[in-house]
């Protein structure tokens, strides 16, 4: 069952009507419905195109968080071969909010790291809704170092509302784990391509996205704080989340303009959740296009360029 967002209601009505017509036809009523269906699909497409051509930042938030959007493990399954999941921080814990391991990407051996939200209640609990604990960030550090030692490029797929704000996470040093993860990525002597596939939630996301290239899917978001959080702190009114989403400049388009990301990957009409396969292939193509220019660089040059890229951010920021 397709889940519709509230601004997709007109599309939902049309598509429901199409489904009804199809059912009637199957019932053998004998009426010719092909024309009618074509007309309705055309109309639904137009509606979708109009809606998605001018998504507001808060609508983008809804799309980015859509439960049917492809997740890290979908990208891993579709884009990588020989995937060998690796586990554990070697300090006593394993965190399934962060998944990753060795694999091949279109022939090239890589290390892949991603945040996984889970799809139904059981897997959501298993992956802690994609909110990593310190052990997750320490597992990521271990994988980055492994990649560095063996010269394997690193691909990350980021989709998290943020690092887990729990007692256990704080007790085990969430701050340090995030800081050290960012440090480890910045020092990686191999190419790092990070893709924000859904929600890039604050420090919990940046810890996996300090890369040579940071790409964002067209309708993904990346923010220092959730619009809801900002609304209740800065506006003292949770109902102002829309205004906060606008003001915080969290869309891929805004962030490209601010030169904080390196590229935008187009999504199929109606968002990645409508045609996951198309979205995943586009992401693969975008990564494949970036990788060759990075793999030819000497490790020292790679790290230097990565540092310079981050150091340049904000120095010439314009409105």
């Amino acid at each position: 069952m397709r889940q519709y967002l509230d601004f997709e209601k007109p599309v939902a009505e049309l598509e429901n009507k199409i489904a009804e017509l199809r059912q009637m036809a199957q019932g053998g009523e004998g009426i010719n419905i092909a024309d009618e269906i074509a007309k309705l699909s055309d109309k639904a497409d137009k509606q979708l195109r109009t809606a998605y051509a001018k998504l507001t930042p808060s609508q983008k938030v809804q799309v980015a968080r859509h439960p049917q959007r492809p997740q890290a493990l979908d990208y891993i399954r579709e884009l990588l071969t020989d995937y060998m999941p690796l586990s554990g921080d070697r300090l006593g814990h394993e965190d399934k909010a962060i998944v990753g391991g060795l694999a091949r990407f279109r022939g090239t051996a890589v290390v892949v790291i991603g945040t996984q939200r889970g799809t139904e209640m059981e897997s959501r609990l298993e992956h802690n809704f994609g909110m990593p604990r310190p052990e997750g960030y320490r597992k990521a550090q271990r994988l980055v170092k492994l990649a560095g030692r063996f010269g394997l490029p690193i691909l990350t797929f980021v989709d998290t509302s943020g690092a887990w704000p729990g007692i256990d996470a704080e007790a085990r040093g969430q701050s340090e784990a995030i800081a050290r993860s960012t440090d480890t990525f910045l020092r990686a002597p191999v190419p790092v391509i990070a893709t924000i596939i859904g929600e890039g939630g604050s420090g919990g996301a940046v810890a996996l996205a300090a890369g040579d290239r940071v790409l964002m899917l067209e309708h993904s978001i990346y923010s220092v704080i959730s619009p809801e959080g900002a609304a209740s702190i800065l506006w003292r009114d949770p109902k102002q989340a829309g205004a906060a989403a606008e003001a915080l400049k969290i869309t891929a388009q805004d962030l490209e303009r601010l030169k904080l990301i390196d590229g935008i990957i187009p999504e199929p009409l109606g968002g990645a959740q409508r045609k996951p396969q198309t979205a995943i292939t586009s992401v693969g193509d975008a990564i494949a296009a970036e990788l060759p220019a990075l793999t030819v660089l000497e490790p020292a040059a790679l790290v230097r360029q990565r540092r310079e890229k981050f150091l340049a951010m904000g120095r010439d920021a314009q409105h």
Partner: protein
Amino acid sequence: MSWLTEYVRPKIRGFLKREVPDNLWTSCESCSQMILVRDLERAHKVCPHCGYHMRPTAMERLAWTFDNGEFTRIELPKVPTDPLNFRDSKKYSDRLKDQRNRSHLDESMVVAHGEIGGHAAVVAVMAFEFMAGSMGTALGEAFIAACRLAILQKAPLIVFTSSGGARMQEGMLSLMQMPRTTIGVEMLNDAQIPYIVVLTNPTTGGVSASFAMLGDIQIAEPQALIAFAGPRVIQDTVREKLPEGFQRAEYLLEHGMIDRVVKRGDLPRELALVIGLLTAGRAMSSIPTPGTEAA
């Protein structure tokens, strides 16, 4: 590095020698007991009754840290003001103006150099009095400037942290200060410059999850709140009673996240000691650290 060649050196000596009337009283923020203001200032804002460490200004901190209270502030890089044209209940640019007038500071970090126990040192202090010590582009640039100054002077960098976290009014530019300040720490590491963090109350959010947790030595003042997510956020998420002393300096010490908890009055001596020990190995500095040069 134009900021280094162009910087002016305002000498700030005896900046804090204000006359306080002998009969002025205040009360402790923690135990509520009455204290003579003069006594409180002499005790560097530590309550003589309960030992509670009250929050100092950034300028007070500098004066207490350097020998004889003498130091030289450096001018910090200028950054674009209000890059997002941000407005909540108030325009961010107006908020900045207000804060500047009220705090007599340009931003939420002050950087100075001088001597601690006779050792040359660079000190960066976060000013909680300026927008809750929040981290925006200016703070990131100030921290990187402090790192560069320390490398140039071959002197250790000591940072006093106190921050509510990211400067939300700068959106993603504030988040990007996490990798940017981390790069500053990496430059120190690569140059084998000691980097000492003193965590003070409170240090949370993006600051604690970046340069504040990457020190060669991690010190904290007693009772300081040090957290990634603040206690209220955690309470709202897990709906459990938080443990006694949760996220306080002593709790972090017990959980292996910091090296030492040091009373404010002992800090200058501790810092001098640590600097003396870490810089005693200078003869080794020609040997590259494994891993850093491989990059």
